[in-house]
């Protein structure tokens, strides 16, 4: 694995490797597995020595790290960091991952600064400086700040990911926003993964748009490392 290799995904995800420096939106309604997918895409390289940075708006770091361990049994928390914006008291809990809390989702300045500092820290510990960042979710943040502030925050984060040859995965629920909001936030990303519920086995269907050399149309997917 070198710096120039694309970021690949577990066998259950019909997504070809994504070029370093890219940010993608993972868009799906609340009942789909879009948010789980956005987390999982940032964990898929963890066992291979890549690092994972999470900005979690609603889920506590405990729940989030538990989810990572469940979907990816080889998950190594020492190469992970979480910014917990859930507002819940972490108490004396100890984690292998680096955890920072932000008292409110409206503090984009604080979230951004902490993300920058944690990114630098993970960059030095990850193989070839490969860091995947997952923001779950833009929709939640949008309830606390205006669109222009959120755009600025997301664009800054995407710029950092670009400058460090990382991978960014930002979750959004497009059904909770008007067209202008989704169109504006889409400008921070290089491509988009749409997610929908589907009958049958698996976790739903996804469709990749705006990225090169990806499968056409809706494809079934399964979240997690297990083949």
């Amino acid at each position, binding site marked *: 694995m070198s710096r120039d290799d694309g970021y690949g995904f577990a066998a259950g995800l019909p997504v070809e490797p994504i070029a370093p420096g890219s940010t993608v939106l993972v868009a799906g309604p609340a009942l789909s597995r879009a948010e789980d997918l956005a987390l999982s895409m940032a964990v898929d390289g963890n066992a291979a020595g890549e690092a994972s940075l999470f900005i979690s708006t609603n889920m506590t770091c405990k729940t989030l790290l538990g989810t990572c361990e469940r979907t990816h049994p080889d998950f190594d928390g020492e190469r992970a960091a979480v910014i917990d914006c859930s507002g819940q008291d972490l108490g004396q809990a100890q984690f292998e991952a680096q955890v920072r809390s932000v008292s409110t989702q409206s503090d984009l300045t604080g979230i951004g*600064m902490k993300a920058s*500092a944690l990114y*630098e820290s993970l960059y030095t510990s990850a193989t070839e400086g490969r860091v995947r960042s997952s923001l779950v979710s833009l929709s939640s943040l949008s309830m606390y700040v205006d*669109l222009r502030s959120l755009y600025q925050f997301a664009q800054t984060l995407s*710029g950092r990911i670009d400058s460090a040859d990382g991978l960014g995965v930002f979750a959004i629920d497009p059904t909770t926003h008007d067209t202008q909001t989704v169109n504006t936030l889409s400008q921070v990303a290089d491509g988009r993964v749409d997610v929908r519920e589907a009958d049958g086995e698996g976790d739903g269907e996804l469709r990749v748009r705006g990225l090169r050399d990806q499968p056409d149309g809706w494809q079934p997917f399964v979240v997690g490392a297990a083949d």
Partner: protein
Amino acid sequence: MSTRILCVDPDERARQETAESLRTELSDLDASVETAGTVEEALDRLTPEHSALLTEQDLPDGTGVALIDAADEIAPDAGAVLYTDADPAAIDTDALRGSVTEYVGKGSVFGAERLGRLVRTTVDTRAQASYPLPQNEAERVAALQAYDLDDPAPMATLDRITGLAARHFAVEQASVNIIGEHSQEFLSCYGGATEWETTDREDSICTFTILADDVMTVSDVTEDPRFESRSEALVGMGIRSYMGANLVTPAGLVVGTLCVYDDDPRSFSTADETYLRDLATVAMDVIDLHARADAPEGDR
């Protein structure tokens, strides 16, 4: 496009080292890197054309965070980076009042290289701006610079066009706007718009219009998520609803807009959009023909 960077550090040697390393890392951008040692000196040096501001947190007359907040008034498009020895956990970001900043630790193993790359991305993609840029922004700005917009020759015709637009749509205000690298200028105005002065690009509705295919309408700025945070100022200018059509050069680059503004919420029909688009095409033809007429013979 110009690349001006300001490095602020109280330690003379440290700031010269940072400036020199940026000049080397960004040599292909022909970056002009200036330095300052205090908040006061930095605010004196800073202009709206600056692309990036790098600062230590601890400064003799204040903090880097306070400087970044004050700089936002002068250079809203400039990206800010705290390049500091200070522990990020110890930095009180309350003074930033919602602005964003990047952080790079001076002690980081990859400090200088990471700083260079981060500043490059921040400048190239205007990563900390609060509005999206067109994909072809560099070409667009270059195209704009090729026109002499101080040329008085096309003004009388442009004034007739803004007047026609205002009367057709029965609005009090209309204008031809130029969307520059960091600002919006009013080239020709009708009605109350003649009182308007150049605005920051981030406060301009048209900076979103130039992303659209040709025409953009806003039926109520107070209800549109892109403009609601600025709607008080807009309504104060008599702008409650808006329609703008792009001024497109023969090479297909958007340099500005022709706009009409209503002080009440209203919707615009497809026929309205077509009419404004036609007028915008005429306006651009006028600007272009005068530019060609003024150009040296070999450039025509």
